[in-house]
């Protein structure tokens, strides 16, 4: 090759993708990063919404990785296209509604499209054989390469020595001896390599980077699909599942209760889309009502709203009810006693 080889690296913000990109850069390859936003990404939203989380580092780990590497990072919105991965995963779900194998295939395929469009030569991922139970196994590695269409242009620098030689190795763009043979769930080899490269303060795995791996989130998504009778969703639907307490007191409607100031402010952005209510006689949450609402539902939701307000022990609480239009009225209600809220109402 007369020019410098060029590779696009999938950068998640975690340590493995950071190291994988760096290993390839060490061999003189021009690397740029790509990061996909599905709408289910944990990063950013949760920190931004909840006031109590605001003390946490709010950096975007993928951008942080790119800065450490000194490379460009292209963040791509795949919210719409990703729906089919979530709704119809060919390889099924993991422990929750996480379609990890289909997700990896989809992302490598999108990276392949980007590679072709930008005249790059190969793709890098931070995958390690045995690291993840669904998508990073010896038998799934070739499935990802084949079904994404990337084939031998997909390089996993951290475990390459355990896999057949790829095109960049065959063509001499990469020396196989300078790639690695990591295997299994241990993080020690990666941590040692990070130290060698001088990477500190990298993101630590903490329950995954995708809400679909979270059991509670998956239960809420399954509830949304079941009660609507369709698996279609939009971005607002999946954002709202990340926020507040969700209770379904009747099959045809649920309420979303802000748990603190940050969540209340976030829910305010949805006021025009939902019937909503808030206490005016006491401090309390903003509550959205999702579903086909009847007058009886309003009364019940108001009593629940009162229960989650500072007036929970008061005789009566005044609740202001707002329709989707400008119509507003007030109700004086008795807060619903805690023992009258069945555990099954909580989603």
């Amino acid at each position, binding site marked *: 090759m007369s020019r410098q080889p060029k590779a696009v690296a999938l950068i998640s913000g975690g340590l493995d993708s950071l190291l994988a990109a760096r290993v390839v850069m060490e061999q003189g390859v021009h690397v740029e990063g790509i990061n996909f*936003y599905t709408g289910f990404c944990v990063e*950013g939203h949760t920190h931004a919404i909840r006031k109590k989380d605001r003390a946490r580092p709010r*950096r*975007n780990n993928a951008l942080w990785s790119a800065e450490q590497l000194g490379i460009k990072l292209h963040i791509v919105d795949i919210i719409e296209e990703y729906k089919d991965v979530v709704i119809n995963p060919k390889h099924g779900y993991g422990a929750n509604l996480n379609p990890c194998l289909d997700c990896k295939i989809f992302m490598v395929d999108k990276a392949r499209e980007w590679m072709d469009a930008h005249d790059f030569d190969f793709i890098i991922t931070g995958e390690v054989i045995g690291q993840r139970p669904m998508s990073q196994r010896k038998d799934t590695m070739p499935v990802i390469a084949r079904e994404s269409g990337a084939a031998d242009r997909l390089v996993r620098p951290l475990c390459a020595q355990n896999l057949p030689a790829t095109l960049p190795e065959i063509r001499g763009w990469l020396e196989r001896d300078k790639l690695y043979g990591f295997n299994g769930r241990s993080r020690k080899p990666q941590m040692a390599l990070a130290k060698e490269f001088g990477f500190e303060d990298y993101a630590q795995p903490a329950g995954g980077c995708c809400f679909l791996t979270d059991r509670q989130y998956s239960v809420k998504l399954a509830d949304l699909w079941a009660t609507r009778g369709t698996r279609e969703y939009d971005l607002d639907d999946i954002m709202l599942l990340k926020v507040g307490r969700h209770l379904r007191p009747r099959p045809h409607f649920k309420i979303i209760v802000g748990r603190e100031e940050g969540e209340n402010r976030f829910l305010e952005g949805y006021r025009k889309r939902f019937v909503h209510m808030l206490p005016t006689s006491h401090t309390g949450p903003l509550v959205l009502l999702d579903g086909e609402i009847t007058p009886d539902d309003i009364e019940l939701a108001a009593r629940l709203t009162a229960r989650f307000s500072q007036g929970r022990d008061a005789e009566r609480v005044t609740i202001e009810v707002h329709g989707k239009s400008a119509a507003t009225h007030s109700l004086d209600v008795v807060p619903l006693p805690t023992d009258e809220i069945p555990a099954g109402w909580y989603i």
Partner: protein
Amino acid sequence: MSVTVVDARHLLCPLPVIRTQDAVGKLQPGDTVQVLCTDPGVVHDIPAWCRVHGHELCTITEQEYEIAISICIGGSGS
């Protein structure tokens, strides 16, 4: 030298960054983008994105819950 306004209010990160990136991709070096946001995460993410892509962060102003970020497009493109 044009000034483009990106309204990313009520979007959570990284969507404001993506909207900014999409706008910058259509502009020329020396042009300016003004991004309006409400997610406090942008005060970290958009400057980081600018550093990675070689654009100059001109100003960040915060008023109540609204944040305005002005970016001068650098020569390296997006």
